[in-house]
């Protein structure tokens, strides 16, 4: 059994995005699999024993942390979420100007948008002071309870 081969395979899986690798040569089949941690929960891919020899790759579990864009959010960013289910509108009427644009400075109480529910236009106000970094929903699209609408950089 070539231990160097096995070490190379482990390194290959470790340093790449590969999660499962199976190699067969001269009647020897080796499989290396790794656990991936995504957003704090563990996903274990299926691990099968080689059938022809009793090679055990104990300790070949490699943990790799993959961070997502949500985790790199800076501490002073705040999401404004929809308090109701409905349809999101940027402006009070189809031909009117949008309430706010990206880059606008807003205060607590500034009206940011409308969420329409059952024919009622509900004005959604900001609960913080800061700058609008991103508008997360397209005009006229449906939104559900607590769906993020705006990303605000707090002052």
């Amino acid at each position, binding site marked *: 059994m070539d231990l160097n081969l096995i070490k190379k395979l482990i390194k290959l899986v470790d340093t790449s995005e590969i999660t499962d690798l199976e190699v067969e040569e001269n009647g020897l089949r080796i499989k290396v699999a790794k656990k991936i941690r995504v957003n704090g929960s563990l996903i274990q891919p299926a691990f099968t024993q080689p059938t022809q020899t009793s090679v055990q790759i104990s300790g070949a579990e490699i943990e790799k942390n993959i961070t997502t864009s949500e985790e790199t959010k800076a501490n002073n960013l705040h999401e404004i979420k929809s308090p109701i289910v*409905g*349809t999101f509108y940027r402006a009070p009427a189809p031909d009117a100007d949008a309430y706010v644009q990206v880059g606008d400075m807003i205060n607590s109480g500034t009206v940011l948008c409308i969420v329409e529910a*059952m024919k009622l236009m509900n004005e959604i106000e900001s609960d913080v002071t800061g700058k609008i970094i991103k508008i997360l929903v397209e005009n006229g699209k449906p939104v559900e*309870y607590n769906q993020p609408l705006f990303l605000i950089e707090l002052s």
Partner: protein
Amino acid sequence: MFNKILIANRGEIALRVIRTCKELGIKTVAVYSEADKDSLHVTFADEAVCIGPPLGKESYLKIPSLISAAHITGADAIHPGYGFLAENANFSEICEESNIKFIGPSPQMINAMGDKSFAKDTMKKNGVPVIPGSDGLITDLKSAIGLAHQIGFPVILKASAGGGGKGMRVVWEESEFEKAFQTASNEAEASFANSAIYMEKFVENPRHVEIQIMGDTHGNVYHYGERDCSVQRRHQKLIEESPSPIVNDELRDKMGSAAILGAKSINYEGAGTVEFLVDKDGNFYFMEMNTRIQVEHPVTESVYGVDLIRQQILVAAGHAIEAEPGKPFGHSIEFRINAEDPEHGFRPSPGVIQSLHFPGGFGVRIDSHIYQSYTIPPFYDSLIAKLIVWGRDREHAIARGRRALEEFTVEGIKTTIPFHLKVLEDQRFLSGKFDTSFLDNFQL
């Protein structure tokens, strides 16, 4: 036929409705509170909309959120399930006004049967036997006591707007009457914001036998036999069966006809249940009518070979009921499995399900939304699964029930499975000779 149905409910019944919708080729929308985002009905539906925080009144009971969710998903019908807004006339009306078909009765039908005192009057006028009692609400104490003597003590005072055992007091003799009346009124005011009280003869230790009916818009009203729901704890049903051990073909015809009469008198549309009390002499009296699909509908489905949710949807879409019901075949029993600890006063036992195995095999049906690693939220009722068994006769159904309960494994939380197994050892239950007082004297 509907293109898309929004299910305004959660848990096992939401899943139940979604399953039938899929079989009919109808798209489904699940709604969920934040506490239910990992719920199975959310996963199984074609679309899902978060409608609010965990509390019922801020999510599943919040009409604007439900209507709005239907609008943004383009749902053309709403199935309300049971509980929550299923018997809310206001909701039925708002659906109508919003051009969404409410899969259930009209606001008028709901109101007619929701007012218990009025419902009784309606039934009486249509020749349905009712429990002797006051003609409407009690207005003055003196004549009420006179009436009580006429009917014969014991009598029961009940809240007109009530249910679930609240606002009820049994009076055994005249000297207790005034105090009982005051307490019942106060409780009714506190629980339902309506202190109106009516009076009935108190039928001691009755059996609770209900008739399943279904009406369509083509003039058909059918009955699908009876369910015996006498095994109750604090007026909450725990075990239901069909047929009832005390109902023969003749009694079934009589009760079924009475139920149909009552339903026809209000031009009833959709699924409904007419509840009767049956005394030890086999006399039956109308108690109330529920204008919704009920938790225990599967036992009827098992012995009549019918998908009741499917019929509900067809009826709501304007079709006739698919077939006239035949005779019941075999015997079916449902065991409500709750996340409760029977050894500690049935206290709720929410938490994580560590290990789960559903029983299977011929004649075993599980209606449930739970899965291994699921966390049961503490905000809603404790029903986590319904185990429904079918057998050639009652004895066979009981043996199958026992086997299935023994196979049913739930670890990580406490359930009422051990309790059900104990009931299946009790001679009174096994003989079929029991009534609604059965669990009062039950030793665990």
